[in-house]
């Protein structure tokens, strides 16, 4: 009966503020939507242009046929002996194998060193050292790849690779792989360290309490417990290495003009990314549309590979999150 009657205006709040809130929400929604739309448009144009490139191989236009030596173009041009878009030679395995070689070399460098650095930071370094080193590591991850590419071109190639192997020139897939490896070490170390830090300290204490030394605890308890995170780190780094462009463009020495198929890391070679870069920058001297569009086809292949790797890595990261 005497209950106070609530004035409607008290709960209405300030309409200005409510409107402002709505506007801010709309701005962020647009920002999120825009980034999604842009990504979709990029993928769309990639697929569309790659499709029109494949269409050209099946139904070759006149200007493309004029560039060939034998006047023939078919899908088999995707599986020939070299990558030479100027002459309508689009051997995708030349690029694919070069990319794989560079990535294997890179991961052979970045995997062990990055993991070792992560174990040191997570298990051995004192909190003070870690506080200093972890940010330094993350800054290292931000070194522009062109700097490392130049380093690989001018120092790793001539002074390391050419010195160790007589048959190798100043530019080689090996030199590029080592450069990419250096580039990816901080990435491997940083993600692996995060994975290992997320292993609860209670497990380390339990292990130490049973008379395990630090090395045993690190390798038998912490590493297995963090394994999904470590695998994720490795996959993300692999995907980064495959997608790395500037280092291989500078140091691998394969011009997009004509790259020969090779299985030897000591040879020069063009990776998928390097071939795309040289074509996009026009150093290939391609004139016809069909040759230029091969760039999109390679891009689509690259996209599928890295997307697959990222999806797999994401699965592993989810698993490590669920575990504790």
């Amino acid at each position, binding site marked *: 009966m005497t209950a106070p009657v609530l004035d409607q205006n008290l709960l209405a709040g300030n309409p200005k503020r409510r409107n402002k809130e709505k506007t801010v929400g709309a701005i962020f929604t647009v920002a999120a939507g825009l980034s999604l739309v842009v990504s979709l448009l990029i993928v769309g144009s990639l697929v569309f242009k790659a499709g029109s490139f494949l269409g050209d191989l099946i139904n070759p236009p006149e200007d493309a046929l004029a560039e060939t030596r034998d006047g023939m173009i078919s899908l088999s041009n995707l599986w020939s002996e070299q990558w030479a878009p100027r002459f309508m030679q689009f051997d995708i395995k030349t690029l694919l194998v070069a990319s794989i070689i560079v990535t294997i070399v890179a991961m052979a460098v970045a995997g062990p060193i990055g993991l070792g650095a992560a174990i040191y930071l997570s298990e051995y370094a*004192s*909190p003070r050292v870690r506080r200093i080193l972890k940010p330094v590591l993350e800054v290292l991850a931000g070194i522009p790849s062109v700097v490392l590419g130049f380093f690989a071109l001018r120092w790793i190639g001539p002074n390391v690779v050419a010195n160790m192997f007589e048959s190798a020139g100043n530019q080689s897939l090996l030199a590029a792989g080592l450069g990419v490896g250096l580039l990816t070490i901080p990435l491997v170390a940083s993600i692996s360290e995060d994975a290992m830090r997320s292993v*609860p300290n*209670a*497990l*380390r*204490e*339990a*292990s*130490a*309490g*049973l*008379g*395990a*030394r630090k090395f*045993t605890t690190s390798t*038998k*308890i912490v590493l*297995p*417990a963090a394994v999904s995170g470590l695998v994720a780190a490795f996959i993300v780094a692999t995907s980064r290495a495959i997608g790395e462009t500037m280092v291989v463009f500078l140091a691998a020495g394969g011009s997009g003009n004509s790259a020969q198929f090779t299985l030897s890391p000591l040879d020069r070679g063009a990776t998928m990314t390097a071939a795309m870069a040289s074509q996009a920058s026009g150093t290939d001297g391609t004139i016809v549309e069909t040759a230029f569009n091969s760039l999109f086809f390679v891009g689509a292949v690259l996209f599928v590979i890295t997307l697959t790797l990222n999806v797999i890595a994401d699965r592993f990261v989810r698993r490590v999150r669920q*575990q504790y």
Partner: protein
Amino acid sequence: MTEVRHMSVDETSTEDLVAEDSSVIMDVSDVSVYYGSFRAVRDVHMPVRQHEITAMIGPSGCGKSTLLRSLNRMNDLIEGARVEGMITYQGIDLYGPRVDPVEVRRRIGMVFQKPNPFPKSIEENITFGPRIAGIPKSEFPELVERSLRSAALWDEVKDRLNDSALGLSGGQQQRLCIARAIATKPDILLMDEPCSALDPIATGRIEDLMQELKSDYTIVIVTHNMQQAARVSDRCAFFTTEVDSVSDRRTGQLVEYDRTEKIFSNPADERTENYVTGRFG
């Protein structure tokens, strides 16, 4: 204050000390533990006797766990932790220059507050310690069974030794941790509030288990639960905190250490009496 403590220890247990001196397996004398410049617990005298359960009770922050962790050098893992005074185990100074903390922990095992099984199978949890101690694999099956039986867990898990330990209940996990600790055949078992994360039924099982383990091991247990200390322990150390009027920091100190019956029925110190009768803490 210090005066009172010395008196209570000396007066009440001189007889025991003389009679049972040879049974002292671990002696804590004049021990203070520091974290950096902060003294967490000071001037503790506490002989631990073989095949007894020694309980450490007292309010939060009085340094019981800190002291317990210094008994097998677990505090070495914490940066800045430091022990002053003397802790001897079978007459050997645990903090002596030639002592390897890893060897110490193999002989003085530990069970923690929260069950912390490894994310491995039940069997691998048990064999982890023996494996690193170099015990031949051929002995594992028997060792696994014996350890699990000692921890009263065998019947519940014997059919799923290869299942993940994380699938066990909290009480089972804690008994697994006890089984894991005794698989390395330690002399002394340190238990840091082993039942605080468990329900009353699981707690009861662990308390029964401690009574059984007593014949083979020496147990030092930290507990928040006074009834538990009264039920399970043979001797009881009561700690309290004193607040420094200048720095406002709390330092733990040992008030009274005696037979459990005496601590709970006729304590020498007023503070002990207030605590055990529930007037404080």
